[in-house]
């Protein structure tokens, strides 16, 4: 059986230069020690024993991992495994769900973002988010991008705002397509364009991190490729955490991969998300240490 992992491995071999910066000085054969060789990049998020509850329901149990600067970190796993829940903890989006509660440590540049003194709004200004379904505001293209800078008070003058809009649309590789119709409604764009607009909207407030929640799941393959290329281009400026249900996508674009699964919580008889394994992407896909990971990436489960 030709497995997903096989094709993934083939892909990784196909584009060695893409991951060159991340894998410098690494011997792919030395699985498990890879992380301790070469100089570790700075950490952005440190997650330790993270539990997430919705009311009395425990959605995620004991997740521990670190997200590194200027890397793309992918979170994969079957549905209901809590990967989106964890992602939404990073910018405190879960605060919007009544009854949601977080326990454990989640540090952003060594600052505990669930500290009672921390304002979630400030967190979200530094940690942008792109959602599963493109969600442009029912406003003009220009106003979509300008929204963040306006509400955060970044740009007061019209000229500054124009510059930010152009720069952000450029970063999202959308400028050439929309520069002549900035005043048109964003809802007139195609799905792929809308999603790139949402990426532009997120980078317009100049965040440190971009969280992406299955950003390509509503898009066709061509639009998906464009978004993936875009992520490769901007990862030198941003730290990206992406949730995806598409394993090839994780293999293609990410430096590290976290594999989550759902397991039955025996005490409460409920399904609960669990981080099974976290490692460099090539390790997860070529030589995982946990059997469950292997079953998943080879397509035997999930």
């Amino acid at each position, binding site marked *: 059986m030709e497995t997903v992992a096989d094709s993934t491995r083939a892909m990784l071999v196909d584009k060695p230069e893409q991951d060159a910066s991340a894998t410098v000085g690494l011997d792919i054969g030395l699985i498990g020690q890879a992380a301790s060789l070469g100089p570790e990049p700075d950490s952005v998020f440190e997650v330790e024993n993270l539990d997430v509850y919705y009311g009395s329901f425990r959605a995620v149990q004991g997740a521990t991992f670190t997200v590194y600067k*200027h890397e793309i970190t992918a979170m994969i796993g079957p549905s209901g495994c809590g990967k989106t829940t964890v992602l939404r903890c990073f910018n405190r989006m879960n605060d919007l769900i009544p009854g949601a509660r977080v326990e454990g440590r989640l540090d952003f540049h060594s*600052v505990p*973002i669930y*500290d009672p*003194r921390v*304002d979630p709004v400030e*967190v979200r200004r*530094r940690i942008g988010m792109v959602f599963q379904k493109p969600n442009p505001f029912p406003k003009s293209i220009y106003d979509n991008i300008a929204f963040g800078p306006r509400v955060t008070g970044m740009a007061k003058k019209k000229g500054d705002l124009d510059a930010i809009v152009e720069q952000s649309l450029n970063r999202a590789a959308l400028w050439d397509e929309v520069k002549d119709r900035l005043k048109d409604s964003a809802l007139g764009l195609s799905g792929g364009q809308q999603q790139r607009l949402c990426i532009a909207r997120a980078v317009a407030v*100049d965040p440190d991190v971009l969280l992406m929640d299955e950003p390509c799941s509503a898009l066709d393959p061509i639009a998906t490729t464009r978004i993936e290329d875009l992520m490769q281009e901007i990862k030198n400026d*941003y730290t990206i955490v992406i949730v995806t249900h598409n394993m090839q996508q994780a293999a293609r674009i990410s430096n590290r991969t976290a594999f989550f699964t759902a397991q039955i919580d025996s005490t409460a008889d409920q399904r609960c998300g669990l981080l099974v394994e976290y490692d460099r992407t090539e390790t997860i896909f070529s030589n995982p240490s946990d059997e469950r990971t292997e079953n998943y990436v080879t397509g035997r489960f999930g």
Partner: protein
Amino acid sequence: MSDTRVDPVGEFSVESLKANPRQARKERLIRDSLGATALVSVLISALIIWSLFSEAWTFIIEVDWGSVWDIGWFPRRGIYDIKTLIVASLIVTGIAMIVAGPLGLGAAIFLSEYARPGLRRTLKPILEILAGIPSVVLGFFALEWIAPNVVKSIFAGPAAGSLLAAGIGVGVLTIPLVASISEDAMKAVPMALREASSGLGARKITTTVRVVLPASVSGLTAAFIVAISRALGETMVVFMAGGAAQTATYTHSALDGSLTMTAGMASLARGTDAVVGEGLTFQSLFFVGLVLFVMTFGLNLVADRFVHRVREQY
């Protein structure tokens, strides 16, 4: 560009992620002001109950209870026969439901199950216009048209006001109410149930009568209870077309004129000097209001239960 944003060395701390105090204060102020507006509704309820009880209490304590069960409603003479008003209210409400029940339900079934979208788009707004017509207009219509053309011609009643004319007028007023709540209830029935029924070879009429109506029975019940409550509380139609002014002798004939609870209050309050009349006249107004309030409040609570049952089901 990227490295200047968050400096991990030294400067970036919990302080950097603290809310801007001015902004936080503004947010709190907005939240609290909006919360205060929501509390206004509670204040209003409290004021309604307070106003009803405080005056009605005086009436309950001071009134000669023999006069509350007497020959009729003559408040200015100290005769406050509440049963005259209640019976008249029940007669009007009963007639109204006989009119509005079938007409409203039939219209709802047609709109929900039979009307093609185009037809529905035309018919529904007309029904909504009917819902928006002020009750004084229906009062005028009941007195000037329904009384001579329906009550006199068909039921050989008086051409002027009567409980029957008022009841039909109130019925017309409540048709859109019955229709819209019933239609909502039927629309809430999942399409899958209809398809399952049709899939078994049932005709449309069978699907409608045996599947859709039973499935929406909670909502239909709510529609009728709300309509009853509305009919009990309707004032102007009965005041204008009920065929009695100021006073009423007890009657249980729909062809007579009489005063309902609401019409009794309106006629008592009519005019500048009427409200502050002799003895307990003023207080009797609040006593009747309290009786009406308790009745409609109970009905509304029950209807609310039924509506919630619909929401829980689907």
